[in-house]
């Protein structure tokens, strides 16, 4: 399924780009992320706990940065195995555009789930994916903006 969104971030394009490549920032922004270990500039391994209502599943997987076009665009791709719950994979193409002092971030994301969560929870897949994508980018924006406020204040 396809998802998309747009965020205005009160930070320069260079700052946003740097954050997009910062494993610590990503770890804070990926919803439910418990661990994100960098194995190279573009490869990370992750532990993510997902909670949807009564369902709690823990995914172990990888996050890869692809199609790097600094500081304009990249793709962030992830896949994880959730044991009995199945697996999830997804990716987002992210583009940055300068708008004065601020940056417009747009993304087109897709997500796929398999195994038990697909078999039993299909009604929730789309809205959950949309929510998680949105949460990630919202967290990302928030992660950049308070710094800005702090420096101003």
């Amino acid at each position, binding site marked *: 399924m396809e998802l998309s969104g747009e965020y205005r971030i009160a930070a320069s394009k260079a700052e946003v780009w740097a954050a997009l490549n910062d494993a610590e920032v990503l770890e804070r922004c990926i919803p439910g992320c418990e661990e994100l270990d960098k194995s190279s500039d573009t490869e990370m391994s992750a532990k993510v706990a997902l909670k949807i*209502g009564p369902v709690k599943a823990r995914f172990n997987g990888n996050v890869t940065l692809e199609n790097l076009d600094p500081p304009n665009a990249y793709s962030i791709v992830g896949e994880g195995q959730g044991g009995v719950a199945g697996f999830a994979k997804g990716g987002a193409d992210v583009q940055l555009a300068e708008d004065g002092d601020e940056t417009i971030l747009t993304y087109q994301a897709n997500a796929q789930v398999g195994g038990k969560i697909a078999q*039993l929870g299909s009604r929730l897949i*789309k*809205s959950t994916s949309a929510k998680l994508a949105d949460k990630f980018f919202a967290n990302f924006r928030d992660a950049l903006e308070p710094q800005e406020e702090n420096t101003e204040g």
Partner: protein
Amino acid sequence: MYETKYHKASSVADAVSLIGKSDDGKLLSGGQTLVPTMKARLAAPSDLVDVSGIADMHGVSISGSTVTIGAATTHANVAGNADLQAKCGGVACLAAGIGDPAVRHKGTIGGSIANNDPAADYPAAMLALDATIKTNAREIAAADFFVGMFETALEEDEVIVSISFDAPAKAAYAKFPNPASRYAMVGVFAAQTVDGARVAVTGAGDDGVYRQFDMEAALDTDWSPNALAGVQVGSEGLLSDMHGDATYRANLVKVMTRRAVAGCA
């Protein structure tokens, strides 16, 4: 099902203490959602704290216009309560249509709203009636309680004790069941309250229960099914799945609201 430790709480305080002491515990009420999820191995709470036996959490009481329902009251007991049927038939009727008879014998109102399944029935009534959710720690207005799909304002160790609301002048619930699960594909609770018309929709929204303000405005002007004819319901933000797309759900929101209003007593 993974291993777990079962505790039967004797009081609200006991439940709060047990859940607080647990590593990754979960409150168990009727268990009609939690137990199947655990059977599917999609949840593995270390501890289960069963609140269904707490005496204070049972029963329906009516004082003046205020209706209070204990959180561990089963759907069957809500549905069958004669006082509630007289005071607010809409809620009793809603309870009578949840799941099937065996589920209604076990499932509870507290469990239903704490779970806030986007297709659950009770949240629509709670939101429409601006109910107050009373926990061991505080009172939460329904509008603040239902945060999003499966999300509530509850803390992990917070126990819902009761729910109360003012009986509306008129109220009814109209549900369009999913052909497979029989959960609400769209459920609309319409009520004429002291604060005006209220229309809350479950099953349709992709972030859980919500109020349909356009419908409310139309009904505030004229409380009748006909008043809804001109109201447009968009498909934006509505769920799409194998049972029906957002356009179909938008249509159902309209039809079910009309039916709820027509059925109001």
